[in-house]
């Protein structure tokens, strides 16, 4: 079997991208209540870990995870969620490929790690918030004064982006482990993994 991506592989990427997107949107429905928005960075990777791990059992060649990350980025772009998921996805996707390749596409530990790395591309949805943060606080300064703005920034400190990114990664690992358990319990027994 040659190493070039065949139409069958590309179709698989499309199918699992659709599934991942459905999971993302279903969980994002909770985001109507603004307090839950940071929670998405935890829930989406955990729930998404199940289809993602199943997807990884079908990944035996270079490029499938990378393409999936890129496609997610394109979809986020056309939905108006900002351009950042795409470049972040390009980077995280590539890292995922290198990890998988180093394990010869057969290591389940590396698959869990990849689940963590892949989930970090979700952070791209939050990035505009942090980028906007500074300029936004600047505009508030002129309206409300320094003291007020400084008090505000305490709730969303400079380093909070790191926290969110870490949450994505760790939840991705959790999702990967969950996916691995479901693989064993169901998909392997049923013969589709």
């Amino acid at each position, binding site marked *: 079997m040659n190493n070039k991506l*065949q139409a*069958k592989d590309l179709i698989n990427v499309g*199918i699992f*991208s659709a599934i991942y997107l459905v999971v993302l949107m279903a969980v994002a429905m909770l985001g109507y209540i*603004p307090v839950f928005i940071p929670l998405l960075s935890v829930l989406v990777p955990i729930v998404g870990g199940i289809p993602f791990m199943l997807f990884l059992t079908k990944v035996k060649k270079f490029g499938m995870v990378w393409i999936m990350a890129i496609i997610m980025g394109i979809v986020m772009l056309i939905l108006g969620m*900002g351009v950042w998921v795409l470049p972040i996805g390009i980077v995280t996707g590539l890292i995922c490929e290198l990890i998988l390749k180093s394990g010869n596409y057969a290591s389940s530990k590396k698959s869990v790690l990849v689940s963590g790395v892949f989930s970090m591309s979700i952070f791209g949805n939050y990035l505009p918030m942090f980028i*906007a943060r500074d300029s*936004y606080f600047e505009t508030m300064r002129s309206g409300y004064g320094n003291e007020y703005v400084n008090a505000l920034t305490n709730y969303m400190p400079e380093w909070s982006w790191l926290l969110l990114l870490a949450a994505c990664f760790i939840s991705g690992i959790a999702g990967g482990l969950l996916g691995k358990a479901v693989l064993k319990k169901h*998909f392997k027994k049923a013969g*589709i993994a």
Partner: protein
Amino acid sequence: MMANEILQSVSTGKRFKLDPRTKMLMVITISTVIIGGGNGGLMNIAKPLLAAVPLLMLITSRRSRAAIAYTAIYILCFAGERLLVPITSGFLNFLIVACCGMLTRFLPGIMMGYFLVTTTTVSEFTAAMERMHMPRQITIPLSVMFRFFPTVGEEMAAINDAMKMRGITFANPMRMLEYRLVPMLMCSVKIGEELSAAALTRGLGAPVKRTNICEVGFHIQDMFAILICIFGFAAFFSSRIIS
């Protein structure tokens, strides 16, 4: 009906069509400039202009409900910020600031995205991608994704029905997750297999350049829209350079 598609399946109106590439540029421009942009100078013109563009688009494409919702939420946030911030304090204050701030910044981009998604068909989008010389490693999975998205919805609806029928209720969140996802994934893999076979036996994967009978192209309205985007980006970058 039941199909909850991302992009449209068939054309919903032919008034003055914008090329999908133009729409994408508009979404990118609006979300980038409004979310990340500073203030002062050209931005004072660019930002309101770009925020108004989705409204204009929605009105001209007869999506009055979305247009009204957009306007209403925007005004609400604006007012909320002016009125509620001085009278609240602590975490609640932060919450209001964050929500109003976020919404006013994100909403224009999202509404433009909504416009794109509800006025572009999958075929048009794929044709536009192919025109942009996107490699087939991207266009094929992308079209499959759009095609499969409603199918996942259908499968989940059927599984929900089965759960209702069998009386499986919200016992344990882990179980519910398992019962929702596992059958759906099994069915999806099977459908995916059949889909692949049907596509391959119709020649998908041949090493020739795919043609596409869907018509997309640039017209005068696209030029106009692109000019606005160029202006937006000019304002964006100039304010960056200044500050």
